[in-house]
């Protein structure tokens, strides 16, 4: 196989590539934060006039909460902030499809590139 000679990239194009990658990193990480898509899907199950008993805390537990500086009122939002696990099948299917599609593309495209690497590396020697 003929040895591949890459084109020379200008300095401005190199800088553009760096800006593109950094921009993409920020969009990927910052956008979910900005759109409120990041973080746990939780909700507070409200209890009116909470007491340690209604919050499900025994004497040992309530003693520890008090050592940490909490009252039933201030501990309410911590204790009652719960996950509500419901399997949203359409979202799960989308997630699985995105993940599988991503890995299939990665391995197939990588293999194509890898064959070129091996051909150039080893066929040159022979």
């Amino acid at each position, binding site marked *: 196989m003929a040895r591949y000679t890459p084109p020379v990239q200008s300095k401005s194009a190199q800088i553009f590539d760096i800006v593109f990658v950094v921009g993409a990193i920020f969009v990927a990480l910052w956008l979910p934060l900005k759109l409120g898509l990041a973080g746990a899907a939780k909700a507070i199950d409200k209890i009116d006039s909470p007491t340690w008993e209604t919050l499900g805390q025994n004497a040992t537990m309530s003693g*520890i909460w008090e050592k940490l500086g909490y009252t039933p009122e201030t*501990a309410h939002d911590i204790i009652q902030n719960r996950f509500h696990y419901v399997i949203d099948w359409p979202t799960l299917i989308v997630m699985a499809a995105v993940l599988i599609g991503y890995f299939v593309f990665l*391995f197939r*495209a990588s293999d194509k*590139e890898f064959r070129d690497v091996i051909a150039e590396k080893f066929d040159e020697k022979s």
Partner: protein
Amino acid sequence: MTSTPVSPSLTNTIHGDRVSLLRVLGPVHVWALGVGIVLVGEFTGWNFSADKGGALAALIVCWVVGLLYTSVAMIDSEVTSTVAAAGGQYAQAKHIVGPLMAFNVALFLVFAYTMLEVSDAILVGDLMVTVAGTEGLERHGFVVLTIAVLAWLNYRGVLMTLNFNFVITALAYLSILVLFFSVQPWSQGAVLQLGQLVTPENALPYGWIGVIAAFQFGIWYYLGIEGTTQAAEEVRSPSRSLPYGTMAGMITLLIAAAITWYVCASLLPWEYLGFTFFPLYDAARVTGSGALEFIMFWGTVLSAVASANGCINDAARAWFSLGRDRYLPSWFSAVHPKYRTPYRSILFLLPIALAFAFIADLNQAITFSILSGVLQYTFMSINIMMFRRKWPLGSIRRGYTHPFHPLPAIILFLLCCVTFFAIFLGFGTQLIAMVAFYFLISLWFHFYRYKFVRRGDQFTMPWPKPQGY
């Protein structure tokens, strides 16, 4: 074990500038790098698994995820002791799967470690602000100071960086042991109240689906141990130091994780355990001992600093490797002429870490890091199968051969699938957004950037042609 042939990329200077990284590290430094990055997970982060599934779920995932990481350590030890090059899993992917996979793995590494570094710095800042209790005091100053000082330390040299890491990691580990023995673990009821705090009614508040959901933050008990491989080009004997350092690190962490769960679950109600950012520090507060509180305050700070220090080291080496192979502009592949460190990569990643330390909060940064980590482990489970198929045992010299193949790879793959489902339970949108990013950046690399990469030069190992090619 047998000696490993040294990769040509380790000793010559054909890549980039005419100086190479310095070979000065031993197994102790490998241990310090791995445990140093991970130990902060005992001081914060793992406890969010109690939030997702309850206290008992946190214990179950401690052990099951421990199995996942034992598989990671076994697989990593074999591949890295054979592909000993900076970039760790990146170099593995480049030689075994292909360039696009290598590009993605390097980004997994940079994201996982940079976001872990951000989490560490936020932890230091939040703890300082909490303990100071001063009105109007913000964490930002502490965050900037932590990241900037550690970046400078990394800039100045790897030996000093990891010697420093060894000392502070050992002190942080010691603080966990001091707390453990101070609360008389052999005598439940004296200080510890496990039976009163973890009851049949609240042990699994969400049932078994909560146990699965807890896998997400169970990863945090050990996330980063695979970072030991980043030091491959700077250890004196990769075939000996990397497996010993990694396995010793894993044993250390399994013990620390079990102790941490036992003490915290015996001192804090599960709802508080799932809420706090400082579970070990709060456990010390509950004992009422000022001395223990002081020790755990410093243990938390030192563990976070050690982790951030190791993360800067690892993220910079992954970024450096991308530049060296021209996957990114080769400007990043420069090695400092005096300190022999990848200084441009260290400096380049500094403002990115600072920016995210300002815009993200702790559990969001942790989730970003975990997502990249799990994508990387999924790759590793497939990578080892391809490695054994392309270069079967006996075809090349391996520094270490892991036993029971392919069982660890299968276990790792299945546990990764469970963890993806766990992330879906509560953080699914974030997962889809991140995978969409990796997919788009892969298209950019495959169809545009790769044309600037020299083909045959990427393969630097003195191996025969792989089977099937």
